[in-house]
């Protein structure tokens, strides 16, 4: 039996008295793009924090390829092939774009800095310090830092936010392409439904820190629960 | 024992009035003001000079006003032009101010020490729980309590308190909301400097005036500010009182290590709760 690439069991996280995540189970098979949606404050970013080792007080189990990595630091998780992007852009403001991508690649020539620069339209500012980029460009740099070095499991927190429509679609294609070529596994948090519905194999919906629905794009799109809690008029 | 407790309160109270100005300025400008000790010193000298002619209270008033004006000038002339740069630069400028003010005092008031006596109306002792204690020292405690109360009320119940906290976190955004951050900062620095001046005058009957007197107390203030949590007024009060007591009882019970205890305390507190104190500052 093969293990799911990414698995979370009974994940919970509290902020003081407030439970942001309650007993959430999640299992993403290798090579899948899993959408993670839900209203604001549903706990999506919190879930990513728990999976990626950023959260401090949490409970449950996190497994990658069946191996329990709950005790691993965020650094160790990256070494095991897990990478993430941030909803609040997290880059190295005074370093140039290229420099920080080289850093993120650990100077491994196999990680194709130039390729990533090209894929994310960042090549033209590779020598500019990151704090001189526009917001959207910084968002793409944040994503590039996660993509570099061919992670096996990619956790993306609203990567298309702040991008133009065209770029969001390019990004969607890129992700699908990477999954196909490298066989990576993606957990994608996104409010842009065009992106989510166009590339996600399955979608998990969170609400109030709990699992609401999980299913194929079609199932989620038509679920009355999801429509009322999240999609609103946009449900087509 | 009781008297030693009171002694601790007096020193703590004095430290508080001086430190709270440091906290105010730090909170707003993210700057550790090295010139604060010098403001204390100049305040004491001005108070002394005026008091010679017009009495202690006039000296106090003159010093407070003069220091407030100096505070405004400091803010406009130094802090504001540098606000877009690394706070470290401003720290450096306050260091420069310190040198200038010390030299100024040496030139104007001379190098000899000056000793100020307690104003006659406040001299004498008060009988208290069967002990007698200098009245002036009791007043120092009272004034520090009033300062805590007044400042907390001002910052909590007037809008300016919110603006101070907001602009210290993010001046640009606060400005976008319609807060004149320049004015807020001038007021705050003026109040901080005035408090330094006030504590200088209050301290002058307790310690001899000299151009370098600011340096002796500055480090104690740093400890208070840091242990108290950098931009917390209540924290600074507790820390000042704690340092006051530690200072006293250290001398009584652990004389050989007394001068190192506050530093050890500071190290312990910082290691125990670094996040509570470091915030997002980078000075």
């Amino acid at each position, binding site marked *: 039996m093969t293990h799911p690439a990414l698995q979370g069991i009974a994940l919970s996280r509290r902020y003081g008295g407030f439970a942001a995540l309650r007993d959430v189970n999640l299992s993403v098979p290798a090579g899948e793009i899993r959408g993670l949606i839900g209203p604001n404050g549903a706990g999506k970013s919190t879930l990513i924090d728990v999976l990626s080792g950023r959260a401090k007080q949490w409970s449950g189990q996190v497994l990658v390829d069946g191996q329990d990595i709950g005790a691993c630091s965020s650094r160790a998780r990256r070494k095991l092939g897990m990478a*993430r992007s941030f909803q609040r852009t997290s880059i190295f403001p005074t370093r140039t774009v290229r420099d920080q991508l080289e*850093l993120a690649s650990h100077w491994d020539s196999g990680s194709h800095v130039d390729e990533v620069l090209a894929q994310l339209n960042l090549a033209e500012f590779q020598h500019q310090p990151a704090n001189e980029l526009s917001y959207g460009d910084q968002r793409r740099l944040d994503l590039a830092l996660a993509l570099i070095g061919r992670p096996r499991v990619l956790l993306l927190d609203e990567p298309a936010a702040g991008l133009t429509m065209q770029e969001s679609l390019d990004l969607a294609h890129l992700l699908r392409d990477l999954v196909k070529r490298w066989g990576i596994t993606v957990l994608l948090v996104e409010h842009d439904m065009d992106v989510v519905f166009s590339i996600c194999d399955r979608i998990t919906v969170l609400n109030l820190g709990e699992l609401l629905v999980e299913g194929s794009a079609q199932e989620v799109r038509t679920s009355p629960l999801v429509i009322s809690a999240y999609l609103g008029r946009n449900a087509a | 024992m009781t008297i030693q407790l009171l002694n601790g309160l007096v020193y703590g109270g004095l430290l508080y009035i001086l430190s709270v100005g440091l906290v105010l300025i730090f909170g707003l400008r993210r700057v550790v003001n090295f010139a604060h000790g010098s403001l204390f010193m100049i305040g004491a000298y001005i108070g002394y000079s005026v008091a010679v002619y017009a009495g202690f209270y006039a000296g106090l008033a003159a010093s407070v006003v003069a220091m407030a004006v100096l505070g405004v000038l400091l803010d406009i002339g130094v802090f504001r*032009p540098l606000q877009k740069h690394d706070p470290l630069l*401003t720290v*450096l*400028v306050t260091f420069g101010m310190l040198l200038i003010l010390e030299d100024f005092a040496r*030139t104007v008031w001379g190098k000899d020490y000056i000793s100020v006596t307690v104003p006659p109306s406040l001299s004498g002792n008060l009988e208290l729980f069967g002990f007698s204690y200098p009245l002036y020292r009791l007043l120092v405690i009272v004034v520090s309590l009033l300062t805590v109360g007044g400042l907390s009320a001002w910052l909590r119940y007037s809008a300016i308190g919110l603006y101070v906290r907001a602009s210290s976190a993010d001046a640009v955004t606060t400005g976008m909301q319609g807060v004149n951050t320049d004015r807020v900062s001038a007021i705050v620095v003026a109040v901080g400097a005035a408090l330094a001046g006030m504590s200088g005058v209050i301290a002058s009957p307790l310690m001899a005036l000299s151009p370098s007197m600011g340096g002796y107390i500055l480090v104690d203030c740093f400890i208070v500010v*840091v242990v108290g949590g950098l931009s917390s007024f209540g924290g600074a009060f507790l820390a000042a009182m704690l340092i006051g007591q530690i200072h006293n009882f250290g001398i009584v019970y652990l004389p050989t290590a007394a001068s190192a205890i506050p530093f050890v305390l500071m190290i312990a507190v910082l290691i125990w709760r670094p996040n509570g104190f470091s915030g997002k500052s980078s000075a």
Partner: protein
Amino acid sequence: MSGPATHSQREVTTSGHARFVPPAWVLALLSIGFGLTLPHLVKGPTTMTLLTQGTLNALLATSVGVLIRQCGLVSFGHATFFGLGAYLTGLLLKSSGLPTGLVLFLAVLVPTLLGFVIALVIVRLSGVAFSMLTLAVAQVFHEIVLKWRDLAGGDDGLSVSLPSTIIGLPGSVFQSANSMFVICWTTLSLILFGLAVFSRSRMGRLVHAIRDNEERARFIGYETLLPRALVFAMSAAIGAIGGTLFFLYNGFVSPDLLHWTMSGSALVMAIVGGAEFVVGPAIGALVFLGVKDALGNLTEHWQAIIGVVLIVITVGFPSGLAGILAAVWRRLTRRLLGDRKIAKRSSVRTVEGKTQ
């Protein structure tokens, strides 16, 4: 020797101009050569003494500066390592009977290890909290040497008559300004060269990135505590080297050397010189000492004038003296090499025709 240029000697600056930066080793060699010839050019022993003291201060300022530049950490307590280096040299020379070479080695090694251990605890903090912590640690050491009357002489300080030969050289070599200047200057040049190389190395870039955003550095797979602790230890080592040389030259050390005001002036020198440049702190130290000395001869009010100079430099040139030099250099080379703008993506940038 500034900026993160790699082997390519042209660097893109924010304003989009090419800049010619000679390689660090060339500068280091030039600098050492300069140091060797200077004693032959300068007349009168006073200038050489001043330069020697200035170079020793430059080592201290550099040790503070490297921490700011690489880690963004501002230490108010680096005089500790300088002072400990000096005290250890003195104490070991006085009473250990060890060979001088070993003494010097230990005098640098012990503060370095101490720095490393302290750093493991304190570099977790940043900002003012870090600064105040260094201040507190430094004051505790200051208290120790101050109170340690039997061994360290308390506030009277420790003076030791130096042995007649030190690491195979006659002791007088270390005590004459002319020869000591060459030793200190060469040491400084080598250290600066090392720092320039370090800041371009992977480790140097990593530490700098951690300074920018520690959390992200962890999430791209780096350990972040150890590299910072290493840099701290490195800066402690530079301070200790300075302290060791200080003792060899002066034969005396007192607790004042460990006082926070000493750390404070080192910080002033580092920032006035431009802490964002490798050579900045050293320049700051030399200029600061020179100005102070010149003013001290002129007027009793040197302190106020220093204060004014300090304010003028900081307000007028926030990037420090090295920043001014860099700007002048940029202008010079631009004139020599022609105005080469790096073409940028946006056409907006190239409408610069009407910018000036």
